[in-house]
């Protein structure tokens, strides 16, 4: 059997380096990437809760860092990743129920996910800055 597959014309999985990006593949990869990034945010959430509860001076340090430019930038990207993963996750749940598999629908819901997650991120930050600032 060795080597015999080289002569067959079976469909092969796309090779990432020569694969033209499409909305479908970009969102699929983005779902994993945002999930990985959000995992780091979950670690921060636990640290933040623990620091708040244990009266550690770490809480003021952590909050000061989160208020810095780097901290705010990270929080902004985390918010975007969160809303994207949330919206695209709901899209995945509909697919699991075998709803929305038409190619037209897949692209439509894909763009809805993109614009909804951006819109919710901007709304959240407008609300947060208005409450705090």
């Amino acid at each position, binding site marked *: 059997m060795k080597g015999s597959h080289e002569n067959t014309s079976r469909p092969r999985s796309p090779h990432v380096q020569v694969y033209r990006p499409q909305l479908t593949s970009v969102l699929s990869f983005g779902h994993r990437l945002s999930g990985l990034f959000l995992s780091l945010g979950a670690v921060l959430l636990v640290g933040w*809760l623990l620091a708040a*509860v*244990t009266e550690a001076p770490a809480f003021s340090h952590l909050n000061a860092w989160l208020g810095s430019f780097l901290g705010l930038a990270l929080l902004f990207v985390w918010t975007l990743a969160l809303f994207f993963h949330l919206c695209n996750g709901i899209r995945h*749940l509909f697919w699991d129920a075998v709803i929305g598999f038409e190619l037209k629908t897949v692209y439509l819901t894909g763009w809805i996910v993109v614009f909804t997650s951006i819109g919710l991120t901007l709304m959240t930050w407008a609300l*947060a800055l208005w*409450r705090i600032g």
Partner: protein
Amino acid sequence: MGSDDNRVAISRARGLGSAKTGAGQWRWQRVTAVALVPLVVWSLASLIAVVGGGREAVVEWLAMPGAAIPMILLLIALFWHIALGLMVVAEDYLHRDGVRFAAVAVIQLGCMALGVTGVVAMVLALIA
């Protein structure tokens, strides 16, 4: 699999049926996802409402069962969801058995440790 032949010997497979338990991780990924939709929206809205008040406001908020209980549920569902998601990524991209085994073990132990730490913090907030 040690063989180059990917085909299943149908004589061996016939009549055995499915393994029945194989979809467990897939299903829990979805169950935790559904639970996380309201919990994440609630926690984000609450954090925005409370975070401007400093540490006292955060602790006072977390001391209420109405805040601590959903936060505990969030932590459990979140780290369960993270463990399942990271395991899928590890299983897809790490091809060496030893490396993959180590990565999955680190993911499982790490998520359990972080989830328990978060829940303990919430219990401390409740009894404080």
